[in-house]
């Protein structure tokens, strides 16, 4: 669990918690409603679980409402989300009509009268049809909307334009819209289970349970075993490094969906006792915390991703990150300061070798990364951005 605002004083930048209280004073008594399609499992849900209680702690009336829908609706949500992310889907007129009807039912059911209504992600987009006359409405899209499936986007864009503004995680993720567009980067919660401080003894117990030995430097990539995460590319980078340095590689992620590359990755790992493939249990926050703390260098080399906040979580633990240029990764890594951005397997191997050959750099870049995250990617900054937007829109 995350904490109350006061708990963040020890980790947030100097003066920032008091500053947050001051911003909130300006906005006390205002009401914010956040709406998402589920309470667990999505990019929006993780951050809402933390931000909503803190907003209330600040004296701003904050509520979090969740859409209700049938099993058929859930399938539509998945198809629409994938389609907007640019993965070709079959979304029929009938499916869009069902989406429309579900949003209309929820708009009638949910208490959406507020100074600011923030509607998260694709499936909730059509709620705007039922918006009351008062209040400002924001559409918060957490993924990459730069190349959506054209016909699907043509059908949905008119609804996005009915919001007072849209909010994207990075400028490069934004689609052209007639309405105003704002940029708010995602954040990590330093007090969450994934990021909290973990005593060495506890860390060792988790690693032992996972079968990860700490007798050699560890290279770690976290991510599902899917082709777009390029775990095989990471194995190849490791092999190039292994010619010069005695290291271990740990690939840790959730079980893949259809078309995953778990079997291929396990096959590649089976030939090398220093490669460990870990299929993690659901919600593996504790395990990831232990693994990231055990890592010497973290790799994050997907071919396609959204913001990729796994980079920030690793940096928060003082690890240099070698990452690809996909999604929001380059906006988190300050290349040559907190790690390196690379375009190829060879580039990743070269940078990892360079770090292993210059261990003082590992410590220096790790420390710079933690500070970079402290100032730019903690939940306190995120909260401040929301409060600023509320103040800007509502005067």
């Amino acid at each position: 669990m995350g904490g109350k605002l006061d708990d963040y004083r020890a980790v947030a930048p100097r003066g920032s918690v008091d500053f947050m209280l001051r911003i909130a004073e300006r906005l006390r008594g205002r009401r914010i409603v956040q709406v998402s399609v589920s309470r667990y499992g999505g990019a929006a849900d993780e951050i809402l679980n933390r931000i909503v209680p803190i907003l209330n702690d600040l004296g701003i009336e904050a509520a979090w409402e969740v859409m209700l829908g049938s099993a058929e609706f859930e399938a539509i949500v998945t198809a629409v989300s994938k389609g907007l992310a640019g993965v070709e889907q079959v979304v029929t007129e009938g499916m869009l009509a069902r989406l429309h009807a579900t949003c209309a039912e929820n708009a009638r059911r949910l208490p959406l009268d507020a100074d600011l209504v923030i509607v998260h992600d694709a499936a909730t987009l059509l709620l705007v049809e039922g918006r009351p006359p008062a209040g400002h409405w924001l559409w918060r899209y957490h993924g990459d909307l730069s190349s959506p499936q054209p016909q699907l986007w043509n059908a949905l864009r008119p609804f996005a334009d009915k919001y007072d503004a849209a909010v994207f995680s990075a400028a490069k993720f934004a689609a052209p819209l007639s309405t105003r567009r704002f940029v708010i980067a995602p954040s990590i919660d330093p007090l969450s289970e994934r990021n909290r401080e973990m005593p060495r003894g506890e860390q060792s117990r988790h690693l032992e349970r996972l079968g990860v030995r700490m007798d050699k430097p560890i290279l770690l990539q976290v991510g599902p075993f899917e082709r777009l995460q390029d775990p095989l590319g990471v194995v190849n980078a490791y092999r190039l490094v292994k010619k010069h340095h005695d290291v271990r590689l740990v690939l840790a992620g959730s079980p893949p969906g259809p078309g995953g590359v778990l079997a291929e990755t396990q096959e590649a790992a089976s030939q090398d006792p220093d490669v460990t493939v870990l299929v993690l249990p659901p919600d593996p926050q504790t395990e990831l915390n232990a693994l990231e703390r055990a890592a010497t260098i973290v790799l994050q080399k997907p071919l396609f991703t959204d913001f990729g906040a796994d980079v920030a979580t690793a940096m928060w633990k003082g690890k240099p990150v070698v990452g690809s240029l996909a999604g929001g990764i380059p906006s988190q890594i300050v290349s040559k300061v907190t790690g390196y951005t690379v375009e190829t397997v060879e580039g990743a191997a070269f940078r990892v070798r360079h770090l292993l050959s210059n261990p003082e750099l590992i410590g220096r870049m790790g420390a710079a990364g933690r500070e970079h995250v402290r100032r730019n990617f903690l939940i306190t900054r995120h909260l401040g951005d929301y409060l600023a937007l509320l103040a800007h829109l509502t005067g």
Partner: protein
Amino acid sequence: MPAAEHFVFQGCVQVRELLPHEAHDARELLEEIRRVPAESIFCHTSGLLVHRPPEPDAYPNDFALWADIELRDRRLTERLAAIDPFRLGSIEGVRAELVSTLEHHLQQLSAAPSRGGEPFRFLQYHLVPVPTGHEAGTLREFRDALTGADASTLFFHIIEARYRLGRGRGDFAEWVDTVLGRHELAERLSRIDPYAGTLERVRERHLIALNRALEEEGGA
């Protein structure tokens, strides 16, 4: 001392708005720089200090960073990085220097300008001032308040005041001079280069100057 002469520390938060302006090469960058609102030029140059990364050799503006990463044009990068809002003193001055630099660069090109992988996307800041609750009537109170205030306070009173609101030397130097009558200290504060690093480094340099002044007047 009357309350009107107290220094009231304001912090600020920025809302970043994405504008419908993009550039794919140096020529388009020039066209858009001529066209975008002044707040956007501010956001990509002086405003950058809010989120400036910790390395000392970070580019001082987003245009230079883009020319390096996306256009991979070293000459243009170096020329854009040399543009110094501290010396130019106003956003329109910065815009004119950017235009002149890009025009000169394009004139010297023998081929069409190369296109970047990612376009330059223009943003603008909307600044929301926030009272910090810190006030100072003496130099010592001023030093103490500056020590604990949110870093955005430095942005508001130095960068925003100086480059967007056109308040000459910045609010700190102005108050130290006109209210406390400390002309030499004001001069020292106004000479601190805000582009020398992060806001925390700017704070440190102010605190060094203030501590020295307090020591000179007898005990910090």
